């Protein structure tokens, strides 16, 4: 009869431990500071706007808002998914961790394109968008 052995030892990592300061570590902090600015601005701007398609399209005619919105989108997706990766890689190691990383990379690219498609819909009138 098979008995399940539950180890109380910490998991043994097959790879060397991550260096204390990695690019991901630096970028997580860099995007954190950017997010304070981008998200603060986003909340401020949207609060004083009576949101509708016409108003958003008008706002996005000013190119600086396109830059700010795409900037917010990219930083929030990187920061959020890298944060999730940090949590997940503590539970999963080895091959599964790499699989999770690839999945999150694809999810991140998909999310950025999704957000851009929404922005582009306001800007260039998506094929489906019928105004009026």
């Amino acid at each position, binding site marked *: 009869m098979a008995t399940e052995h539950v180890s109380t030892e910490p998991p043994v990592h097959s790879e060397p431990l991550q260096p204390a300061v990695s690019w991901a570590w630096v970028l997580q902090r860099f995007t954190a500071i950017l997010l*304070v600015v981008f998200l603060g601005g986003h*909340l401020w701007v949207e609060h004083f706007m009576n*949101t509708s398609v016409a108003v958003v399209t008008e706002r996005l005619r000013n190119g600086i808002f396109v830059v700010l919105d795409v900037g917010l989108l990219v930083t929030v997706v990187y920061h*959020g*998914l890298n*944060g*999730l990766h940090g949590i997940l890689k503590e539970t999963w190691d080895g091959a599964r961790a790499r699989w999770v990383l690839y999945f999150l990379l694809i999810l991140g690219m998909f999310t950025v394109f999704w957000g851009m498609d929404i922005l582009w819909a306001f800007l260039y009138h*998506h094929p*489906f968008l019928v105004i009026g």
Partner: protein
Amino acid sequence: MFIAHRISGLLILGYLYLHLILLSAVLLPHGAKHFNAVAGVVKAPLFIGADLVLFGIVLVHGLNGIRLIVADFGGMIRSSRLGIWLTMTTAALLLGLGVLVLLPDIVR
């Protein structure tokens, strides 16, 4: 604070996708009509209240994040009582400010 940072982070990531799903109303056929309808629904007091809860979660995550960055680069102790106290007090003050700003939209 370690656990609070992770839970608030996951909640905000979840909200990001909810936010994108709601905004995607604009991608439906006759998107302008659907988007404006969604924009009308989320103006309801219940949703403004939910926005304030979200604002509180964002404040805790953001201010605690600033505290951690200051600790990493400025030589403050990561679990410093003063740092945590400052974080929570600032979060409470800014949330109070948010409540004052949004109160006219809740009580109409």
